[in-house]
């Protein structure tokens, strides 16, 4: 991917910006902050997770932030999980009621409303955005959006939640991450380190201040698969040990089944249960062992429910990864993450 492809020459940060962003510049450096400031990010749907992502990315000092909210009208229910809203907003178009609050959060960020409809946007031949984030989308929307981001060579993040449970899907197409880490007893070597990751460059440097510290400067090539392919091919075969297969979170098959048809839970529960068995087979896990009945019940019951602290965790993780790839710091997520709000389990699967 090519972050910040649409942008004019980067300008250096002013002293006032350095003072404002002091605590994060100390973490990721001036160069990363400059990259963040020249990026254009699009968010689709500003529900509970979208609100969290908006807050985090706008605070970080991104260059341009845009929201497409599909003419969503504020409901009473929205008030329970979206902090930009007040009861006076019920019945009004959501994006209109919150836009001033977003600007007030960080006036340095160029904020705009994407006026295209979702369908129009994805029928265009080009994209103005360096990164696209979609939340609370249907299966078909994710697939269509992913086709569009792939054809524009744009990184895509998708996140959604069902009550206490949630997921993140990431498609950076291909991404070379740069890493500097202290050399450990288990030294890094060139070559494949996991199904989707390969170390393509390795350089060893010594800390001039503390010669005992030896660093490895790594370039890791991350490969990704499109959403549609992931749904059909996701399996744990050969990826986990037998013992690990017995301890897979029930949220994994539940979420994948949900994503295969996002309407099914509400329209046909018995079909959903049947499909759940098929997903387990595809994943190569034992449904009798993994699918704890209380989890299945709760997942079905909590379908479509937004819950603020779960949105905070998922929105935080997505935002951090967006910032990381813009700043070229830390390893990116690759490529499917689920969250279980009961046990705080949050495994990452490479599919």
């Amino acid at each position: 991917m090519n972050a910040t492809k649409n942008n004019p020459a980067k300008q250096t940060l002013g002293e006032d910006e350095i003072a404002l962003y002091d605590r994060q510049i100390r973490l990721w450096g001036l160069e990363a902050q400059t990259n963040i400031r020249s990026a254009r990010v699009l968010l689709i749907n500003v529900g509970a997770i979208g609100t969290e992502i908006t807050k985090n990315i706008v605070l970080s000092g991104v260059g341009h932030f845009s929201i497409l909210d599909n003419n969503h009208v504020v409901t009473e229910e929205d008030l329970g999980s979206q902090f930009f809203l007040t009861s006076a907003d019920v019945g009004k178009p959501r994006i209109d009621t919150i836009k001033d609050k977003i600007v007030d959060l960080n006036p340095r960020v160029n904020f705009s409303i994407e006026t295209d409809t979702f369908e129009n946007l994805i029928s265009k031949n080009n994209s103005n955005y360096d990164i696209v984030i979609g939340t609370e989308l249907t299966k078909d929307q994710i697939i269509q959006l992913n086709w569009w981001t792939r054809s524009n060579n744009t990184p895509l993040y998708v996140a959604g939640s069902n009550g206490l449970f949630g997921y993140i899907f990431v498609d950076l197409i291909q991404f070379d991450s740069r890493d500097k880490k202290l050399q450990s007893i288990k030294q890094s070597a060139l070559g494949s380190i996991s199904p989707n990751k390969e170390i393509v460059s390795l350089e060893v440097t010594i800390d001039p201040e503390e010669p005992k510290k030896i660093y490895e400067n790594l370039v890791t090539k991350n490969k990704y698969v499109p959403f549609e392919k992931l749904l059909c091919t996701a399996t744990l075969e050969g990826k986990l040990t037998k013992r690990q297969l017995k301890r897979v979170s029930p949220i994994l098959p539940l979420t994948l089944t949900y994503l295969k048809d996002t309407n099914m839970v509400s329209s046909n529960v018995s079909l959903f249960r049947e499909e759940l068995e098929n997903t387990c087979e595809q994943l190569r896990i034992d449904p009798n062992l993994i699918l704890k009945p209380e989890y299945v019940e709760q997942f079905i019951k909590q379908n479509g429910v937004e819950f603020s602290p779960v949105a905070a965790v998922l929105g935080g993780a997505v935002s951090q990864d967006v910032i990381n790839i813009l700043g070229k710091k830390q390893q990116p997520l690759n490529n499917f993450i689920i969250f279980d709000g009961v046990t705080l389990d949050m495994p990452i699967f490479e599919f």
Partner: protein
Amino acid sequence: MARESSLITIIGEDGYARIRQTKCLLVGAGGIGSELLKDLILMEFGEIHIVDLDTIDLSNLNRQFLFRQRDIKQPKSTTAVKAVQSFSNSKLVPYQGNIMDTTQFPLHWFKQFNIIFNALDNLAARRYVNKISQFLSLPLLESGTAGFDGYIQPIFPQKTECFDCTKKETPKTFPVCTIRSTPSQPIHCIVWAKNFLFNQLFTDEDNKSDDEENKEWGTTDETEIKRIKQETNELKSLQKIILDKDFDRIPYILQKLFIDDIAKLLLIENLWKNRVKPLLLDESIIKNNCHDAKEKISSNKVWDINYIIQNFVAATKKLSQRMEREGSHIEFDKDDEDTLMFVAMAANIRAYIFHIPMKSVFDIKQIAGNIIPAIATTNAIIAGLSAITSLRVLNLLDKFASLNDVTKLNMAFTAMASNMTTNRYLSNPQVAPPNCKCPVCVQVVRGVVQTSEKLNASTTLKDLISLLKTKYGYQENDDVSILDIKDQRLLFDFDFDDLNDQTLEDLKFINGTIILLSDDSDNDLIKKPVELYFNINNNVDKIVLPDLHIPVIEQKIPQDNNEENEVLTVAENGEIDQDVYIIDGDESVSTVDNNDKKRPREKEDLEEIIQIAKAPKTS
């Protein structure tokens, strides 16, 4: 559907009714606190009390999303409450104050809450709230972040590990000789400039070089120790130049610090057998740079020595001009431009002559000011986890995840972001039972004493000791000791009875005084120590000591050196220890090393953790 319908789907109608009745205390309205306040409000907690001491600073605005530029210098607690009114359905009560202030927040004040959320940025307050939670058996959700790293830990007093069950790292210290004679890293030069030089020149503490009294010297070379002591005295004489605003003699300060003193240091040949000798600063560099700097160079760049000297002279002048106004005493403050500049320049000149890499003012500010990086995302994640976990702590998920056994609760830390693993975003081990060696939650019995101001004025320490001995089953001649915990002040032991005739009032017993009563006999079996909180309750007409069961325990013989071996043995037996990086978004806290953290894990986890131990974090 109504606002609360989503929540009711998760916790049920009765759960919703219960959460509306729940009163929680949120300690801290900063990085994690802002986020938690939002989450707790959207979870419809009935009442939320928010305590914060601080006011809002520009550098908070990258993450504390309830605050704006226009709020700078306003109190965090009240500003946060105003900012959330638009979406709040909860009763909100802000307090600007220090949670450790027993006048504002006496023990009985804490009693009104069902649960405490810590969103703190320092160890002392964390420890204090942890202790309060132990006194009152209140569940506590502890949390912290530092940069990408964060953790949450639910604590059930007496049932799960408390905050102090694992050892916390204390700030790093350096031997005196490393700082004063043989620096080898930038940090040594910064500590010298900030803790030694700055204090000698700009504070009125008369030769209070505490680093020379009780500290580790790091050398046994008498000549060197003598030189260091003499140097301290001579430096005080430089302060006269500052106090007299004798600007013409500022070059002499440079001459003394970076030529004369270094020349004396070079005479101690032992020091330089295996080290590179420092340079003497070139006199012409001093002479040519005694004017103000003409240009302004970014604070992110490492400056050239000429520019550094110019800024050293300028900062010294500015501070010198301020001395009279400020009572001949200026404290170092990272946000006070003059003090930061002086320390940064002095540290860099010292680094220059000792062949150590110099640093930018930006970097020195971080080291000298103990600044910990802090970002919105980590705080949002950690606050979210803390809020979610409170549902289980309050047993609001009882329909499908009932809390029969509190040790089934999960703590969590940011495993991927902290470079511990690539296949989990979070690590979520179950909480451990209390550490049997924990001095805070296990090795002590706690209770509350009811007394009044009048009684304190009429009761002597001797009277109190006699009351305590009678109440808790000691014989009259048994050896006990009494320690005032807050000030770490010994009140009484077998060879210290000087205070016996003083009254509790004389001894400054106030609401919130905590004493520790220990069995000092040399028997093998002793009574467990008792920690007593003094509650001023003007309705009592005699001192009321709490009824406590005090078990007899084996006398411990301190064995400091066993710690390391023990951890290794334990690790081989299938238990682990791990580093959990801690603490908050703001300043003045060090990372914490959970050296003692041992909890049974399954084998593959253990392997993973061993990997972690071998692959230290990147910076």
